[in-house]
């Protein structure tokens, strides 16, 4: 214990003992779950201010919850984006495809075809719907749980699977851990394992776009756990200082691996409320409401395009599955949480909405789900022809040394020759590739 200075008041005085607060989630494995403490406002009650409004006039929105889809599965209130049925069906289709893809890839990992996978189950709206509100050439800086953006932007599934399998078709040449995609063509920034680094980078990209008089904006996604990183503070600060045309999306799925959102500071305030201290526009949105996710992202995009400034959006959602294929959530949270989650499932809610407005039915849904599953299965087969992890169908050894720098310096040339020599020793006569 820290010594008290000589002569200081010490033992025996009547000051109360201090106590350290260590946050604890409400429910642990085996606990009955009751989410009645969550304040879930009715759909349609949140006001929708003008996109160019002053952040100080929208403080309540950072503590509320923008919701469009009501209990009746109809769209309500000023945030209803009034999308046509065709767009809604496309949205549902991307979400169904994302879910089917996750299912298949998770199984692929369990079958030993790859080392690792991460699902986004329950969070599909936060990527699919949100990215549909952006232009295709707006730059996105995602975290590892926004595969829905790639699917929405039409990135070929086979490229995703090649990357996950690190096979000879992998555009990233087997250098990256599965799901750390990159696609410049789809304005999708290279995913990093280091959390939150992409958030201030997105701000820098947006600053560059503004400095050049461009019209493109940037959007970034980060989990609520990662908002604890210093980079997130830098992102908020630089965004507001330079009025950068950027959207900072925080996906609050309640869990950062085994740590509940309280360890990211979520016990006493909302993540959207972080915006207030920076002078950013802040919106808190039902992350399982595809229409609300779209509407909020559209609002923020329009705001950025109008040079009216950046926006921080909290998508309030729930991570329905484990953190990754290396995680078992039954070790730290109640299995009931997923079913008790009061905001439901984003795919089901959008489907029910389309049915409620007479534009969809269960039969078509089943057909869509089946077709998605079969499509993913077919593409997976195609990708497997390029190899699966650890089966020799990888990129040539020399590629390991390329792209460290633009040109190969002498020491990498030497090491490349060494690697090739080692291969010759291991496989005399060479590998048949």
């Amino acid at each position, binding site marked *: 214990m820290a010594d008290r200075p000589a002569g200081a008041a010490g033992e025996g005085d009547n000051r109360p003992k201090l106590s350290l607060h260590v946050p604890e989630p409400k429910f642990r494995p085996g606990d009955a779950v009751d989410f009645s403490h969550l304040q879930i406002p009715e759909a349609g009650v949140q006001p929708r201010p003008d996109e160019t409004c002053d952040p100080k006039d929208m403080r309540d929105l950072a503590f509320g919850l923008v919701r469009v889809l009501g209990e009746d599965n109809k769209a309500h209130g000023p945030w209803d984006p009034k999308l046509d049925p065709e767009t809604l069906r496309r949205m549902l289709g991307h979400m169904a495809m994302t879910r089917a893809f996750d299912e298949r890839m998770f199984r692929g990992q369990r079958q030993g075809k790859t080392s690792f996978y991460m699902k986004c189950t329950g969070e599909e709206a936060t990527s699919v719907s949100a990215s549909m509100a952006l232009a295709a050439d707006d730059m996105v800086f995602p975290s590892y749980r926004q595969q829905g953006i790639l699917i929405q932007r039409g990135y070929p599934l086979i490229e995703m699977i090649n990357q996950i399998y690190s096979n000879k078709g992998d555009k990233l040449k087997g250098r990256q851990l599965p799901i750390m995609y990159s696609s410049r063509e789809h304005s999708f920034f290279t995913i*990093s394992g280091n959390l939150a680094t992409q958030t*201030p980078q997105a701000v*820098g990209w947006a600053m*560059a776009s503004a*400095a050049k008089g461009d019209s493109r904006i940037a959007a970034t996604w980060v989990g609520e756990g990662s908002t604890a990183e210093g980079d997130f503070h830098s992102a908020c*600060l630089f965004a507001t200082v330079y009025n950068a045309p950027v959207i900072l999306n925080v996906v609050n799925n309640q869990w950062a691996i085994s740590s509940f959102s309280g360890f990211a500071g979520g016990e006493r305030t909302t993540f959207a409320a972080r915006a207030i201290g920076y002078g950013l526009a802040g919106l808190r949105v039902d992350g399982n409401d595809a229409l609300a996710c779209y509407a909020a992202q559209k609002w923020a995009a329009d705001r950025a395009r109008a040079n009216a400034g950046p926006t921080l959006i909290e998508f309030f959602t729930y991570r329905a599955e484990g953190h990754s294929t290396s995680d078992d959530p039954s070790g730290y949270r109640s299995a009931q949480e997923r079913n008790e989650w009061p905001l439901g499932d984003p795919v089901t809610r959008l489907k029910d909405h389309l049915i409620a407005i007479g534009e969809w039915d269960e039969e078509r849904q089943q057909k869509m789900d089946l077709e998605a599953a079969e499509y993913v299965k077919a593409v997976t087969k195609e990708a497997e022809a390029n190899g699966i992890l650890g089966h020799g169908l990888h990129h040539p050894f020399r590629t390991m040394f390329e*792209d460290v*720098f633009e040109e190969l*310096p002498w020491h990498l040339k030497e090491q490349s020759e060494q690697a090739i020599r080692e291969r010759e020793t291991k496989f005399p006569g060479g590998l048949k590739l």
Partner: protein
Amino acid sequence: MIEAINEALDVSMERDDNIVVMGEDVGYFGGVFRCTAGLQEKYGKTRVFDTPISECGIIAAAVGMGAYGLRPVPEIQFADYIYPGLDQLISEAARLRYRSAGEYIAPMTVRSPFGGGIFGGQTHSQSPEALFTHVAGLKTVIPSTPYDAKGLLISAIEDNDPVIFFEPKRIYNGPFTGYYDKPAQPWKNFDASLVPEGHYKIPLGKARHVTTGDELTILAYGTMVHVVEAVCREKGVDAEILDLRTLVPLDIEAIEASVAKTGRCLIVHEATRTSGFGAELSALVTERCFYHLEAPVERVTGFDTPYPHSLEWAYFPGPIRIGEALDKILSE
């Protein structure tokens, strides 16, 4: 050297609209060392601007700008303060090209004053180059004269890889011989201060022969180039001094050729000894020139302590420490 750096920025910005200069106090004020003086007035606030006091934010924004297509030249006010930006440099800037298989690059040059000898104490004197030479994907450059500073900085800015450009602040205004009790000389008294106008480049990865000699090879960079030169002159040692200029990529050919000729090698840097860049140099010389060596490779470095304030000249690898090492290596 300050004017040379300023000119390098000016010349580069004039030639390429995509170059932006950013950092704490670099805009209106022109930098705490005056290296960016006049640039904002000439190129405007969207190309030369002040930033919040956030090294993480500065480097990260530069990475994002590079991804957009700009060529940012961020300044970190002192190398001692680069650490909050390390994750962005090591995990992001250095690996962007590799992890995206060339889809995204970080063509940025991080300028930062570094090194001691100015009573800067613990946080205005450090030489953290070894933290960067250890990172695959980063280039590290350290000039020792105004002529080199301009030519190397222009090369760094035009290079498509991220470059850490350390400017030895002890020699911003004139070379420093390590004889701190003798009056300092301004650059204008030396030929190396003759800096051509306009655009010229010094290639990265090429060392400079400061002197040619037969008795031993001395590998140094930054301020220490001038110190070893003065000590050798004082002691009448016929040394071949190589100013490495670029630590990564390293001019290994020049090093091998010189040590093969002299058979002896002394390595000198201000940075602390253990795992410093001198260890890498020593290992390379031992591996590649072993049969030419007539004496063990010696290292003269800063001590393995934080940089002290009052005991600066006891810490700094000055003439006495270098002299002892010379005596030892030449007596074997």
